[in-house]
C-alpha cells in the first residue's frame, strides 16, 4: 500500500513536472524564434552605456512577469497597439504600430513564459490603486510626469504612454521601478526619482498611476 502511494506520488510529480516543462518550453521556443531579435529575457540588466541602450530594438523583458498583468499581456500579444508614440529609442520616428501579432495559442504560451520572468525587487501585494491628493500633486506639479508620459489629459511623447496603466502594469512593479530604477534600467532617459522622493511619496505615485484607465 505504502509502495503504491509512493509510486503514485512520484508518478503525479513527474506528470506535473513534464506538463510544466513542456508548456514553459513552448513559450520559450516561440520567444526565441519570434521575439528574441528585439527583446532580451536573460536578466539582470545588461546595459552599461548609452550605446548599449541605443543598440536595443525593443524593451528588455527579463522582468516581464513582475511588470505586466497577465490578462493584458495575453490580449496585447494578439492585438498589439502602440504603447509609445515614437519608435523605440527614437526621438524623431513615429511608432508605426508594426509589432508582430501572435495567434491566440502562441500568445497564451508566450504569456506563460513571460509571466514566469520576475524580479525579486518587486514585493507583491504592497501597492493598491488609489488617486490621493498627495499623489496628484507630485505627479502633476512637483515632479511633472506628463512632461514625458502621455495620460488621458495629453502629455509628452518620449516616454511610454501611461494611458491604460491600470490594466497593463502591476502596481507593485510601478513602485519598485520608481524606487530602484537602476536595477531595471541602468541606462534610461528617465530620472532617478527614488533619489529625490521618499518611499511614501513613491508609493502614492505608483498607486495613482495604477488608476489610469
Amino acid at each position, binding site marked *: 500500500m505504502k509502495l503504491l502511494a509512493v509510486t503514485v506520488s512520484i508518478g503525479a510529480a513527474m506528470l506535473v513536472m513534464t506538463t510544466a516543462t513542456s508548456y514553459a518550453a513552448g513559450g520559450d521556443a516561440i520567444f526565441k524564434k519570434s521575439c528574441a531579435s528585439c527583446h532580451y529575457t536573460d536578466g539582470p540588466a545588461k546595459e552599461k552605456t*548609452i*550605446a548599449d*541602450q*541605443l543598440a536595443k530594438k525593443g524593451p528588455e523583458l527579463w522582468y516581464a512577469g513582475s511588470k505586466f498583468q497577465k490578462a493584458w499581456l495575453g490580449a496585447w500579444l494578439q492585438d498589439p497597439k502602440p504603447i509609445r508614440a*515614437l519608435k523605440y529609442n527614437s*526621438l*524623431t520616428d513615429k511608432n508605426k504600430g508594426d509589432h508582430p501579432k501572435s495567434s491566440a495559442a502562441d500568445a497564451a504560451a508566450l504569456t506563460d513564459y513571460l509571466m514566469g520572468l520576475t524580479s525579486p525587487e518587486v514585493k507583491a501585494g504592497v501597492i493598491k490603486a488609489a488617486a490621493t491628493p498627495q499623489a496628484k500633486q507630485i505627479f502633476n*506639479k*512637483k*515632479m*511633472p510626469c*506628463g*512632461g*514625458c508620459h502621455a495620460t488621458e*489629459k*495629453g*502629455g*509628452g*511623447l*518620449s516616454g511610454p504612454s501611461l494611458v491604460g496603466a491600470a490594466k497593463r502594469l502591476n502596481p507593485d512593479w510601478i513602485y519598485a521601478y520608481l524606487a530602484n530604477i537602476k536595477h531595471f534600467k541602468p541606462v534610461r*532617459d528617465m*530620472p*532617478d*526619482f*527614488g*533619489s*529625490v522622493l521618499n518611499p511614501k511619496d513613491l508609493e502614492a505615485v505608483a498607486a495613482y498611476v495604477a488608476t489610469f484607465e
Partner: protein
Amino acid sequence: MSRIVMTAAVALGLALGAGSAAQAADTKQVFDFYCAQCHGEKGDGKGINVTKDFATDPRNFTNKEDMEKRSDEDIRGVIKDGGPSISKSPLMPPWGATLTAAEVDGLLAYIRKMCNCKGK
C-alpha cells in the same frame, strides 16, 4: 626600474588622453539621450515633448543673450537638482543621481558651445 616607471607614465598619459577625446565625442550622445527630448537636438528648446500640453518653454540654449545671464554654477545646479533649484519649472527634472560629475561638466561645455557664450 626608472624605465618601467616612465613606460607606465607614458601609457597612463596615452590612456587619459584617449579617454578625454572619447568623452568629448560622447557629450553629444549624452545630450541627445537625456536632454534633446525637451531642449531639442539643436538645443533650441523645441524637443519632441514640447506639445501644447507642455507647461513651460524649455531653455533655448542658442539664445546667447539669455544664456549669458546664467552662471556655470547655475547650469550645473539645474542639471543636477532640477528647475526648482533656480526657481524655474519642475518640468526640468533632477539628473544628479543619473549623471556623473564629468558628464555634467561635458553638458555645460556643450551648452556653452551652443550659445557661443560665457556665463556671468
